């Protein structure tokens, strides 16, 4: 209360004093010449700045970014509230006309300290956090955590649970890709595809709602199994859904994939070479769109994936269209996996009888476990000191590495291309910030 009052007092004095820069400087403890700099070249637009008007704009990032800019260029701040950044990503561009000279993503607007929370909760209790790291492919994160703890504690997972995990995780992957498809097209200015994508995605959510009880932030996998069995109704729904989605895919192709405008927007845009992927650690469809057939399900096989027959779609074009094609092909591959897993689904228990209880103490050790998420390699690095709570949890989010590419890929492209590149990377901001 007192602090508020003091600031108000300062602002009133500010209006009466002849040199507002000095007052503001006193108030916010900035050097007056710095404010002068801000007011003449800072957030002021390219149009003239009338003398005496004050621009207090600019935080550390913009000020830091501006240092290299020349008078001919414009610093543009996109986000954290912008339709194309899908959440609260913020990107600073330096533009010449509409061409991008430099760009820099600014993160941290959705940082929720998930890794620190891991140190404060037991292994069992940390599971709901996993549904909220990447809400679009929540089950992959569920799996990454469950898998890491199971590897650490040597916990056996019943075979039925493994297959249930495969089925639900692949369904979730399709739903993530469908949402990406719609949102990406929304970035490119087409409003209708997202509704068609949602129509199909909604059916997946209905299916996943049966075992998990929720529609988005799943917390379904458990240490040593899954929380609920897939009942016959759910299995029937999945069996119906697979051919249904297959019948919808030609529509997707007609409406969007073959569309001339889309092809012109994406072909040759956002060229990411294999070398760049390696330098930044890009994984998932971004890497596969550059022609590398790297998929954690094959490279570091986990669960029952070695028993399933599926291919890893790749595309050698390295551009936005390649990443688009890879994701669309992945939907088909996931459908194949689901079909096979449904046929192979054994009977038995879905949650091991001797599964860890909430207060379970893990053995001492260190473990790394990775799964393939919709956006790439999801990794969990877990260090245990033998107590009920992890000593350290490190989450490796694929979106973070993929976003790091942006600064290099977007250089020299148009603003509209930058939006297309952002979309083609399929970013989920909560995952990047964690």
């Amino acid at each position, binding site marked *: 209360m007192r602090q508020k009052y003091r600031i108000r007092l300062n602002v009133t004095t500010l209006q009466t004093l002849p040199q507002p820069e000095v007052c503001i400087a006193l108030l916010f403890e900035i050097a007056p010449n710095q404010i002068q700099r801000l007011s003449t070249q800072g957030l002021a637009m390219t149009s003239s700045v009338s003398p005496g008007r004050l621009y207090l704009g600019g935080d550390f990032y913009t000020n830091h970014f501006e240092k290299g800019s020349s008078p001919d260029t414009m610093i543009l701040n996109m986000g954290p509230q912008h339709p194309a950044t899908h959440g609260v990503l913020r990107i600073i561009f330096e533009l010449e006309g509409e061409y991008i000279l430099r760009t820099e993503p600014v993160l941290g607007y959705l940082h929720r300290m998930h890794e620190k929370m891991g140190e404060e*909760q037991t292994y*069992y*209790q*940390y*599971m*709901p*956090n996993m*549904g*909220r790291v990447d809400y679009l492919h929540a089950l992959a994160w569920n799996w990454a955590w469950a898998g890491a703890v199971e590897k650490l504690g040597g916990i056996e997972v019943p075979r039925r649970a493994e297959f249930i995990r495969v089925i639900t995780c692949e369904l979730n992957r399709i739903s993530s890709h469908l949402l990406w498809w719609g949102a990406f097209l929304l970035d490119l200015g087409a409003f*209708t595809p997202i509704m*068609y994508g949602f*129509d199909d995605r909604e059916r997946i959510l*209905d299916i996943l*709602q*049966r075992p*998990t*009880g*929720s*529609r988005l*932030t799943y*917390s379904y996998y*458990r240490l040593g199994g899954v*929380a609920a069995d897939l009942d016959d109704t759910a299995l029937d729904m999945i069996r119906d859904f697979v051919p249904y989605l297959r019948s919808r895919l030609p*529509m997707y192709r*007609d*409406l*969007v994939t*073959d*569309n*001339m*405008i889309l*092809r012109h927007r994406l072909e040759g845009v956002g060229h990411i070479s294999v070398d760049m992927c390696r330098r930044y650690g890009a994984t998932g469809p971004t890497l596969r769109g550059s022609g590398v057939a790297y998929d954690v399900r094959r490279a570091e096989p986990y669960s029952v994936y070695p028993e399933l027959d599926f291919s890893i779609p790749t595309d050698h074009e390295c551009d936005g269209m390649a990443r688009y094609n890879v994701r669309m092909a992945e939907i088909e591959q996931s459908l194949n996996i689901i079909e096979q897993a449904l046929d192979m689904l054994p009977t038995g228990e879905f949650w091991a009888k001797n599964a860890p*209880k*909430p*207060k379970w103490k893990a053995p001492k050790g260190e473990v790394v476990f990775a799964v393939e998420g919709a956006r790439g390699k999801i990794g969990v690095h877990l260090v245990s000191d033998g107590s009920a709570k992890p000593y350290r949890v490190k989450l490796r989010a694929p979106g973070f590495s993929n976003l790091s590419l942006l600064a290099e890929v977007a250089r020299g492209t148009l603003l509209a291309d930058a939006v297309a590149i952002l979309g083609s990377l399929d970013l989920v901001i909560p995952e990047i910030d964690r």
Partner: protein
Amino acid sequence: MIREFGKALQGLWSLAIGLGVTFRAFVRPQVTVHYPRATVDDANLRTYHGHVELIGKDDAPEVPRCISCGMCAMNCPSACLAVVKQKAPKPTPEQTKAMEEAEARGEKVKKPTAPKDPARFTYDFSLCSLCGTCVESCPVDSLRFSTELYQAGFDRNDFHFDLLARLRGQAESRPGEASTPAQGGQ
């Protein structure tokens, strides 16, 4: 040159096909559920996990099966449950007298014990992440997810539930049907 024209015509044809797709969608019936007039079907609704609620005893639906062990509150990752045990009733003067007499006779004294069901069972839905840890760790299966879907409030306090009151309300509104998920408010 001719190839360019061919490509352009092919592109135009792809645009026409796109128009065809949207036209077909235009003439087809809508797929959304028109909310106030129609609601999601019950079968779908029943698999939805809403907030947590107590389950009553089979013979006394207004009394929860809960034995106040506190496992749910202890295991909850977000500390949204609070269980308070009942205190043992104060013995009446006659009972005290009988107890003293029994003690004097050297018999084993039977002090009045507290009822097992909780005195207070509060739940802060605004903290809950619906993970199900409480439901899984309950030793007597006294907790379950409600199917409460249409929930809105103007105040954070609207989501602080007294689950005992809710159970009593359910038992009153539907006597003998306590084990089915109830509809309606808190």
